[in-house]
């Protein structure tokens, strides 16, 4: 087995170029990589497309601004593809004022579109969204009397994951509900960067419990304690 480079968060985010599609793991921030997000905010790369379950929390009243919401606040995204923005007032503001393109995708469809890209599929047929605005502009396929939307694969350039533990080859396990989209975005991006709470020697992860196999991972970053 071959070891993957272990880099700093600052080095890692240099791999993200203006205009890239960046996928970020996490569900309301649970499972998002804090060090990579902070480094990307510091570097200030703009004109990005975000693919994530949501844009975490941003509350104008309390000033709370977490995880990818920091990047939204800095206006680093020209486009945001998520299932939910109800917890981020700034994303809603940018959308309503036409500053940023926000595409809302049903959560299960988002998961399947990302997985499809990673699995070499062109897309999937899903009943979700039939008869709603989500159907607009999409091909409807009827099979055995039921209608489905043709939802296209959604690939990305760079994936930013948070893992509980990685071995040096890049095999990953996650922490409880912090798993969510992390294993999916690892499949779908050219460059996959993992912020891991712990990095162990090759051979120290039981091959039966690995969730994301090493072949899908390209760079490792040690999370700050």
């Amino acid at each position: 087995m071959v070891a993957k480079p272990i880099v700093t968060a600052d080095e890692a985010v240099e791999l993200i170029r203006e205009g890239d599609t960046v996928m970020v793991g996490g569900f309301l921030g649970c499972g998002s990589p804090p060090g990579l997000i902070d480094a990307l905010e510091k570097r200030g790369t703009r004109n990005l497309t975000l693919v994530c379950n949501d844009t975490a929390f941003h509350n104008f009243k309390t000033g709370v601004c977490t995880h990818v919401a920091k990047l939204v606040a800095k206006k680093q995204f020209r486009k945001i593809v998520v299932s939910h923005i109800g917890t981020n007032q700034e994303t809603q503001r940018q959308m309503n004022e036409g500053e940023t393109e926000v595409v809302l995708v049903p959560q299960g469809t988002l998961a399947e579109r990302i997985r499809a890209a990673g699995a070499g599929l062109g897309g999937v047929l899903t009943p979700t969204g039939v008869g709603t605005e989500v159907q607009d502009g999409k091909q409807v396929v009827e099979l055995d009397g039921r209608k489905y939307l043709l939802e296209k694969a959604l690939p990305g350039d760079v994936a930013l994951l948070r893992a509980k533990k990685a071995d040096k080859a890049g095999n990953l396990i996650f922490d409880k509900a912090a798993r969510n989209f992390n294993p999916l975005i690892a499949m779908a991006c050219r460059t996959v960067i993992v912020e891991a709470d712990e990095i162990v020697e090759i051979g120290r992860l039981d091959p039966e419990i690995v969730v994301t196999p090493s072949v899908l991972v390209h760079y490792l970053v040690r999370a700050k304690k």
Partner: protein
Amino acid sequence: MEYVASKETIAKRIARIFKDGDVVNLGIGLPTLVGNYVPEGVTIVLQSENGFLGLGPAPAPGAEDPALVNAGGGFVTIQPGGAFFDSAMSFAIIRGGHVDATVLGVLEVDQQGNLANYKIPGKLVPGMGGAMDLTVGAKLVVAATEHFDKSGASKLLRTCKLPLTAANQVDFVCTDVGFFEVRNGTFVLKEYFKPYTVEYILEKTDADIVVDKDCREVEIS
């Protein structure tokens, strides 16, 4: 008769729907309350769409784990026999018909079984999250809502005006005045909750309601 909104009434009645062993997904907000009122002797298994089965109650103070939250971001626990999985498996379970019932809050629900709960154009756009998959995928879709909005207008409609979360997917609507089945393009009143009456419900609701032949008064307590 004066209308007094009561989330508890709704949660208590919905909690009686489930059979022992049912796998249930409860939406954020009002639907989450349903979990508190499941009758003794009935065990339901809660699915949390952010990636696990066996959702348990909030942890004791000090025992919160930032990696163990529900789909609303609140601290929770996992029951013995639970399992974690990724979002693709979570929604495979939801969309694939492996969830027996989902309970969802609504902005509007209509007599065709249409449900709107993710968008008020130009005003509020939280997004659909998992709601579109849940309504399409769960075997039973229960809409949970106070019967009237703050202006006194009925939230049960002839036709939803807001963008739909799902078309023709709602099976039951439970409000704080009664329990309705959606059947053949009308609401069918199955139960009315003390102190409300059939007449009150028919008069105040701007939708077609058929009173079921077995419709009965129920006291929710």
